[in-house]
């Protein structure tokens, strides 16, 4: 495996990202509570989590897409610039240029009244100031790059004239229009059929290697994570509870939540194997998080110490576990974050 230590700065660096939603008359929601990671070009980090874990909110915070009542704090560095400190005009350049995003629902990401070609060309003209015909030619190349058949004809299609898989490809082409160094992917295959999902995953894998992008990929699906990730971060109640390489996390899960999530996922060959192993209960309300380890109320291995802030244990470089039990095995753990 290639080393993570690259001479250039990481494509994206996130430090202590927090997102709170404060609206009058409603309880304060702590959606993201101190997320940190860095990712080099050419790598895929998957954020795996269930609904309400804060994975999509984190992604939207990176893209600056949260509504005004969201309080975002921390540090988000893209190509060495802290984008939380950028003025709106500069942010618009970074967004869609250096960093871009693909979504679960291409119909809501694409404009229904413009053709695919117009939308891609508009992005290129906006960011690079090229003329329309150059931009249109680039748009055609992009559609070819994402393996849309008869690209020249498809440029003139409106989103509703395409099938789900084709729309997803068109949205990827749009996101790639300005050669971003970071691509954010928010469950881009969740709404697709399984035979189309694998096509899109293989396409993203290929594009990411060819173009050397960093991809932050959010999913709830362990199988999808296994197909696409280099690194994985498991998120629960607004925090990363475990990070590591995809093999570390999938083969030797250290956090009880990761282990529970992996074992409760229905996979092949479970017929006649009796009851499925489950995680009891359901995730906590983000408006009233339990003190200490947020997973404690559902954890079969909980001990009294879990009621206080869990330690951040670093079992080996690049990996992290937030659990008292990991501390016993790796006593050289870091300080609580």
């Amino acid at each position: 495996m290639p080393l993570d230590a690259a001479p250039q700065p990481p494509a994206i660096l996130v430090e202590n990202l927090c997102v709170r939603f404060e609206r009058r008359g409603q309880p304060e929601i702590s959606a993201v509570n101190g997320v940190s990671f860095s990712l080099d070009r050419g790598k895929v980090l998957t954020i795996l989590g269930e609904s309400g874990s804060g994975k999509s909110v984190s992604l939207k915070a990176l893209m600056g897409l949260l509504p005004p009542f969201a309080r975002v704090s921390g540090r988000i560095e893209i190509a060495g610039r802290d984008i939380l400190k950028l003025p709106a005009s500069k942010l618009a350049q970074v967004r869609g240029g250096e960093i871009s995003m693909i979504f679960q629902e291409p119909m809501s990401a694409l404009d229904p009244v413009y053709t695919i070609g117009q939308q891609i060309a508009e992005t290129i003209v906006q960011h690079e100031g090229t003329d329309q015909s150059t931009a249109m030619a680039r748009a055609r190349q992009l559609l070819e790059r994402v393996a849309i058949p008869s690209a020249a004809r498809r440029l003139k299609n409106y989103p509703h004239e395409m099938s789900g898989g084709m729309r997803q490809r068109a949205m990827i082409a749009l996101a790639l229009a300005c050669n971003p160094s970071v691509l954010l992917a928010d469950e881009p295959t969740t709404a697709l059929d399984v035979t189309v999902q694998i096509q899109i995953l293989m396409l993203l894998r290929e594009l990411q290697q060819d173009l050397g992008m960093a991809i932050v990929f959010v999913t709830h699906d362990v199988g999808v994570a296994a197909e696409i990730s280099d690194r994985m971060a498991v998120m629960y109640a607004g925090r990363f509870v475990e990070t590591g390489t995809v093999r570390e996390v999938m083969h030797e899960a250290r956090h009880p939540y990761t282990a529970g999530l992996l074992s409760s996922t229905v996979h092949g060959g479970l017929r006649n194997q009796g009851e499925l192993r489950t995680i009891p209960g359901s995730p906590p309300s983000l408006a009233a998080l339990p003190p200490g380890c947020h997973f404690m109320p559902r954890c079969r291995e909980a001990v009294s110490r879990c009621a206080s802030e869990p330690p951040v244990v670093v079992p080996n470089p690049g990996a992290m576990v937030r659990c008292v039990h990991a501390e016993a095995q790796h006593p050289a753990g870091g300080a609580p974050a």
Partner: protein
Amino acid sequence: MQTAHQSAPDKRDRGGAAQPLLIVENLRKHFPVRGGLLNRQIATVQAVDDVSFSVRKGETLGIVGESGCGKSTTARLLMNLIKPDAGTTIFDGDGVGEAGGITVTALRRQMQMVFQDSYSSLNPRLTMVESIAYAPRMHGLPAREATRRAESLLAQVGLNPAQFGRRYPHELSGGQRQRVNIARALALEPRLVIFDEAVSALDKSVEAQVLNLLNELKARLNLTYLFISHDLNVVEYISDRVLVMYLGRVVETGPATEIYSRPRHPYTRALLASKPTLDPDRRTTVLPLTGDPPNPINPPSGCRFRTRCAYAQPRCAEIVPPLAAPLDTLAGAEPEHLVACIVPEAQAAAEIVHAA
């Protein structure tokens, strides 16, 4: 309420154990597509085309397929939520809606359905107990008894009636709401329950809880399930037999273990090969299938899968392949495995089907 079904025979059981609980023959539903100047019919969506199958007493039949394959339409046709264009449904020997058969109202007492969206299938202005008690009251049970039955059902699906009975749908999580929907489906003591993507919207840890609950209820209440899902792993886990659908037709059917270990239809094999492996060391490297499923408005002639099939031959466009025993079946082999494919090489091809 739940009488000891397993020991005492169900009084409603008419044909005995050997008679299938549900027989569906040549079910068809084509939806008109209207448009143009006078809003005339310009095309038809062949949502369900000539589908036949049976569900045995006490088994779980899984229906699996991609979007547009007609699996949900089939469920709605069975419940008479939409009217079929053609086909017959026989419930425990009685023709549904036929003279001398069983009426749709009577059928719905014995056949209930759980939908994917747990929130939209509950009335937001009724408490959980009111929602569950509603159908029994409509079918003539006194209010007090209906409430008692609702509370007992809540307990059976793992929700404390004292804690959850007076709550409204928005006060519950998705998993809890789906438990209520299951309780509500059981309120009329049905014999057959249809689950249409009933666990698909749930988180994985909750999905596993609900699947365990379904298995437990099935054994306890002597139920029969029709389980519809796009999730191949869930269908494998819960089903005794499986029906694979593609563009409105059945392409393969058989015991779950057969279908998952020896799939004969090239579509079934591609579907299984498309599953993510769950193992980063064995990632998918060969694309099992290219393109999207074709539009069901103008499905391909003959075998509907032929446009994506690597083994397609000219005659696949001419013949609608019948659902029949695999061509290489030996005498005495599994007689229930049926496949709708006429190309021997396509049935026999040993593509890699990973076990993940």
